[in-house]
């Protein structure tokens, strides 16, 4: 890296993921000459992109243009002196160098040395140019410009236009919104989208948030429609990483609706390769956690557990305590499935304070519900019921229809186990249409089975 204080470099934004993926296609394979123009706005962000390319497996040598290079010789010599294993060259300070003689003479020099540059570089030559510099070079060195393989834009939007009119809510804030506030939020989103705003990253984000809210309220058909629109817009904006994250959410819905193979295929074919090419291990770990959930559901518990343990250590490495705790909960789910109730109980309990500290009210509540299920399985009905009754108003307040339905069916099963068949039957019957709307085949089959059984016993 050109900057010794590399830790302080800005994070590479997901909106540049498409540019990075396309650039990486030109940097793989045996090195050969390719002339690439890269625009940037801020020097430190340029350095962050170069660092990111290295993380993606494309290390390059940085070659700063020197003020006294007045002829083609020094640049060609510098290129010829590069180590043989150098896969790409980042030509830096080109704009300042061009401006030293008001541009034109040095542009002409580059124009005339096009062929020689190709021979001397013999590998991808990345010409980094600041605002206005690319136009200066292209217009004054048209023969060089004509040889461009591709132009990449790593500028970041600056100023007030960078701020969307209605910014997307951060994750924790969104999942903790109570139902009324969430409804108001949805109305604001709808009002904004009804103005037919120009397609943009901000608009894509709002479709994404809308899809997530619909999913949370159990309107999965609408959620899929909104997520599809978000995906289309993110792809259009060339933010392929966020588009892939939206695919992962659609895959989760497809899995819950009884299409695990489709979900697995989408996660493996459409999401994981993008995370891997971008070197984004954290997003890869989030995706693998979803894959593990599906594998567990399909009975492949050992593969699921192994995958989860790998992801847990990745989250730990990133210091993402919330994701780490969530993964531990998934492991506890497997332990519970295998009958290791005490071990699962301890693991769940250990995650609660971490989740509470992170502010993730929803996952905290789901974890407490998992503890209640263990108590229920151990015959501690009163304790389990107490927990369920405490959690129900919270799920209702947050508007999480699915979590409410799951909790109520657990309450129903306690009633059934106690012989209170009417109470149990009423709850199952009330939850059936909700479950149908969710489109979760397995859940619906379970409720139908319970209703049939209870009616027979009555």
């Amino acid at each position, binding site marked *: 890296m050109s900057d010794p204080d590399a830790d302080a470099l800005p994070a590479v934004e997901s909106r540049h993921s498409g540019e990075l993926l*396309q650039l990486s*296609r030109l940097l793989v394979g045996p090195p050969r000459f390719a002339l690439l123009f890269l625009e940037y706005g801020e020097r430190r962000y340029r350095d962050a992109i170069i660092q990111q390319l290295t993380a993606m497996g494309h290390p390059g040598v940085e070659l700063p243009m020197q003020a006294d290079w007045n002829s083609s010789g020094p640049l060609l010599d510098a290129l010829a002196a590069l180590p043989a294993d150098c896969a790409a060259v980042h030509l830096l300070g080109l704009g300042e160098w061009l401006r030293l003689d008001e541009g034109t003479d040095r542009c002409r020099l580059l124009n005339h040395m096009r062929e020689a540059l190709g021979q001397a570089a013999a590998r991808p030559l990345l010409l980094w140019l600041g605002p206005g510099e690319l136009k200066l070079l*292209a*217009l004054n060195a048209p023969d060089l410009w*004509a040889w461009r393989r591709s*132009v990449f*834009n790593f500028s970041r939007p600056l100023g007030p236009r960078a701020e969307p009119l209605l910014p997307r809510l951060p994750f924790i804030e969104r999942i903790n919104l109570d139902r009324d506030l969430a409804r108001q939020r949805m109305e604001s989103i709808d009002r904004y989208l009804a103005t037919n705003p120009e397609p943009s990253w901000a608009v894509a984000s709002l479709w994404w948030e809308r899809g997530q809210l619909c999913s949370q309220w159990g309107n999965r058909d609408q959620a899929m429609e909104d997520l599809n629109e978000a995906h289309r817009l993110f792809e259009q904006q060339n933010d392929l990483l966020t588009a892939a994250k939206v695919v992962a959410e659609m895959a989760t819905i497809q899995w819950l609706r009884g299409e695990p193979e489709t979900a697995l295929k989408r996660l493996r074919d459409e999401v994981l390769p993008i995370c891997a090419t971008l070197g984004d291990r954290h997003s890869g770990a989030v995706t693998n956690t979803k894959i593990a959930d599906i594998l567990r559901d399909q009975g492949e518990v050992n593969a699921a557990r192994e995958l989860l343990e790998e992801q847990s250590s990745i989250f730990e490495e990133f210091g993402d305590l919330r994701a780490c705790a969530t993964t531990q909960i998934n492991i506890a789910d497997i332990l519970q499935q295998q009958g290791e109730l005490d071990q699962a109980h301890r693991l769940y309990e250990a995650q609660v304070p971490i989740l509470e500290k992170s502010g993730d009210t929803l996952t905290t509540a789901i974890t407490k519900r998992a503890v209640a299920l263990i108590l229920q399985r151990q015959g501690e009905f009163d304790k389990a019921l107490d927990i369920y009754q405490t959690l129900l108003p919270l799920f209702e307040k947050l508007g999480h229809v699915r979590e409410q339905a799951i909790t109520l069916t657990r309450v129903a099963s306690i009633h059934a186990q106690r012989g209170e068949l009417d109470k149990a039957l009423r709850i199952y019957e009330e939850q059936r249409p909700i479950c149908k709307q969710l489109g979760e085949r397995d859940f619906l089959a379970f409720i139908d089975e319970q209703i049939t059984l209870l009616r027979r016993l009555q």
Partner: protein
Amino acid sequence: MSDRVTEFFKLRKNLEPNEALDPDSPLRVDTAHARDTLRRMVLARVPLEWFDSEDTMDYLIDHCGGHPRDLVRLLSLTWQKSRHNRLERADAEKAVASLASDFRRLLNTEDYALLRRIDQGDEDRAERPELVKLFQILALLEYNDHWWRSHPIVQGLPGYARDVGP
């Protein structure tokens, strides 16, 4: 100017942008021979099976302005944008958008106005520095018989479409 060119300009006088490329337009320029040559050029580099359809190949040919380097560039950009090891129409559209973005970076309002006048046959064809710039960046293409025409991708830019005034 030869009679054929004069006739050509007469025909083109009232052409809407891109009408020459519209397959349903009676004014469509007969480019069958040129298209065939460009197709052979593409197929010498990429097997037909790599395209999702022949239309995608033709779409690239329609947008290269008959310029071989731009055709190769569009082909390369399509490959860069593809994620399924196939050259699909959606990727070809992104490639065209990418080349459009290159032009947008370099052209200003006066350039669009000049290109429009040339396309309408209203421009004095004297050599001027502004024209040199447009030729050099391939925003303006010179064909056989000295027929000048702006690059088809330039004709699709909002700046070109906006500049319809006198």
